[in-house]
């Protein structure tokens, strides 16, 4: 062991702690960077020799410190948990948002909603039946019927609009997911190259994790870390990204909806793989939430509203056809157009539109000014089998479903927040901790330079003052 070895030891300490300070500085600088993973410097002592030979003796104590590399303190387990939570949360949040939008199209209880208009419609029949000869009151009844029909039409159009918007948002989501998949593939390539050349790929990895999180929120992906530093991304068991290659998804519109909504005039929307055209299994995330909204929720409530409309048309027409208008010859007429039995198509029939005197208020055997049939129709809406009851049960179901969806989304948000906080506590930068490390590193640097000074003084003693006896 030479005297100069200790100088080298002290130098290695100085260099290592300079490097440690760089890492701490990088951590502190990125304390608020989204997706940043804190790093530490891995150090290892440098021994004098490797494995000593048999019977060989060495009195060496080591030759300082060596920098092994920069370690990224990532918890893969928490990443997996987070992506599951993000997928479930994205899906639940999307469903809740769709339900809120659907509920927004039927604002109840209110003084302006369909429930109110149904009651006003029923009242208009009674008013007209009390004065069957009064044509202006009949006109008011006709207008009330037209207003009710157009309100139901407008609500149906509102539901269809929600669906159209969801489809266009779904396309945007799928495009974003495809772009993200390509980014991950590109980053994989870069990370494989960086890892092979031994350079630090931490920042690239942070960027990749951030993108994969976003993909998790969009479609609920799972990942597998590979030995070469790349990450494979899976969607429902199939590969979306493998190494530097990325597949993609596409939105397919066409075909009938699944039962029980197969008969509705809406096209099924599906998400399929670009490569082989098969549907994607086990989707979650916002894409899944939007698909549920498009293929199940909106059709379901539109179907319920169709039920209200067809109930209204069939009950009113059935009674209306039995009576006659002001002229006894006006028999077998429809009040609502019998062809329009859905919420989108309900309308006042051409039998009576613009001809209020043809509205049947009189029963078959009644005189011209008989109002018995009008009163009977007025009582229809509120009867247990009438349109009012159908509408109330529609609102009840919608309310319960919305409440459930919002609660589920709230719970998922809490879980996501908790997992996110756990992950940030594992990977995030704690300024207190960095300050402590900074103090320790600074002290170690000072101490190393003190060692250097001590050795220098030792050598000075040896070189300049030794062997000067008697001088």
């Amino acid at each position: 062991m030479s005297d100069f070895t200790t100088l080298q030891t002290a130098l290695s300490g100085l260099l290592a702690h300079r490097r440690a300070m760089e890492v701490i500085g990088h951590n502190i600088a990125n304390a608020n960077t989204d997706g940043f993973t804190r790093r530490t410097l891995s150090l290892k002592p440098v021994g004098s020799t490797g494995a000593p030979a048999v019977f060989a003796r060495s009195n060496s104590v080591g030759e300082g410190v060596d920098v092994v590399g920069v370690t990224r303190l990532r918890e893969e387990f928490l990443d997996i948990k987070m992506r599951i939570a993000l997928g479930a949360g994205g899906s639940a949040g999307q469903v809740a948002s769709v339900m809120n939008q659907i509920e927004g199209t039927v604002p109840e209880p209110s003084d302006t909603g369909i429930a109110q208009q149904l009651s006003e419609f029923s009242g208009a029949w009674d008013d007209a039946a009390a004065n069957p000869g009064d044509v202006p009151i009949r006109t008011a009844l006709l207008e009330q019927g037209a207003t009710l029909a157009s309100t139901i039409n407008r609500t149906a159009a509102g539901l269809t609009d929600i669906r159209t918007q969801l489809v266009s948002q779904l396309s945007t989501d799928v495009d974003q997911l495809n772009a993200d998949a390509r980014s991950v593939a590109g980053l994989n390539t870069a990370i494989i190259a960086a890892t092979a050349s031994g350079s630090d790929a931490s920042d690239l990895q942070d960027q990749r994790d951030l993108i994969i999180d976003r993909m998790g929120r969009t479609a609920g992906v799972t990942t597998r870390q590979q030995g070469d530093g790349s990450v494979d991304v899976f969607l429902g068991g199939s590969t979306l990204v493998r190494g530097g290659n990325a597949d993609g998804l596409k939105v397919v519109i066409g075909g009938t909806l699944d039962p029980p909504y197969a008969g509705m005039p809406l096209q099924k929307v599906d998400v399929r793989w670009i490569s082989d055209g098969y549907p994607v299994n086990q989707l979650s995330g916002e894409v899944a939430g939007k698909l549920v909204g498009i293929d199940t929720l909106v059709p379901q409530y539109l179907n319920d509203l169709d039920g209200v409309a067809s109930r209204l048309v069939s009950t009113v027409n059935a009674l209306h056809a039995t009576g006659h208008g002001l002229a006894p010859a006006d028999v077998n007429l429809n009040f609502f157009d019998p062809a329009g039995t859905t919420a989108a198509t309900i309308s006042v029939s051409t039998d009576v539109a613009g001809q209020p005197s043809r509205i049947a208020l009189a029963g078959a055997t009644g005189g011209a000014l008989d109002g018995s049939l009008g009163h009977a129709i007025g009582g229809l809406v509120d009867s247990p089998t009438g349109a009012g009851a159908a509408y109330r049960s529609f609102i009840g179901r919608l309310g319960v479903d919305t409440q459930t969806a919002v609660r589920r989304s709230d719970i998922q948000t809490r879980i996501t927040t908790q997992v996110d906080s756990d992950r940030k506590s594992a990977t995030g930068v704690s300024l207190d901790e960095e300050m402590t490390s900074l103090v320790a590193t600074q002290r170690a640097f000072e101490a190393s330079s003190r060692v250097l000074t001590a050795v220098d003084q030792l050598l000075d003693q040896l070189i300049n003052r030794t062997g000067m006896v008697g001088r």
Partner: protein
Amino acid sequence: MINRVTSSSSSTLMLADLGDAQRALTDIQRQVASGKRMQRASDSPAEAVATLDHRGHLRRAEQLDRNSDSATQWLEASDRTNQTVIDQLNQARSLVVQAQSGANDASSRTAIANQLLALRQSMLGTANSTVMGRPLYGGTTAATTAYDAAGAYLGDGGAVTLPVNEGVSLQVTRTGPEVFGTYNATTPTSGDAFQLLSSLAASVQANDVSAISAGLTQIDGATTRVQGVQVELGSRLSQLEQLRSAGAVHRDELSASISQLEDVDVAEAAITLKTREASYQAALQVTARIIQQSLMDFLR
């Protein structure tokens, strides 16, 4: 590892908690501002359906009350005109009694006969009374009067009925034949009241004593018939009054239930608002304190 607290992990949790507190505050603020406990059906689905149900019943009850208004008009008009008809028949009766006394010469008999014919005319006018533009005694006819000038019935046998309460429909008038009797072409004396008065006038003119005394019984019969109708419709009017006052109580109850379901208890809401405001402020202050703390304040 989880015990490690970093500035980003604590800010995530703090933000989530602050968000919850703020949402609770906004929620109660909206309730206080709008005065409604329920903004949408999903706030409380069961109560929303109940309140929709109550609102439907309330509006139906209001409609039935409007129907009762019409029914009252019809019944009162019927009552009034029936009384007039009874008065006119009584006048006719005293004229016939006067004619019966025998102390009348030809000119006074002519006068009595003319008075009877005039009474018939005014009774025809009464029979053509209208209510809300419709002939009161015309049934469900579209004709403008119940009887023509000659006394022939123009109406039909239809009953005017109005639903005045849940499951209760009232017939609010009677047709001409039910009040005045049926036209009889062969024997006018057993025909309707108008035929009776004309034939009595003729009998008085001719001093047909037996026909005059028989006419007296027939007038009594006609009066009894009208009185029967009047009593029937009068009792219906009092039944309607009872139904209406019961209906008013029912509407008040429904309004109270709706208010109970939908409206905010202002005192309770105001206290909740204050409590949530205080807890939100406390949360903000605590968060501000904790975020300021750092090791750097203590390192030299």
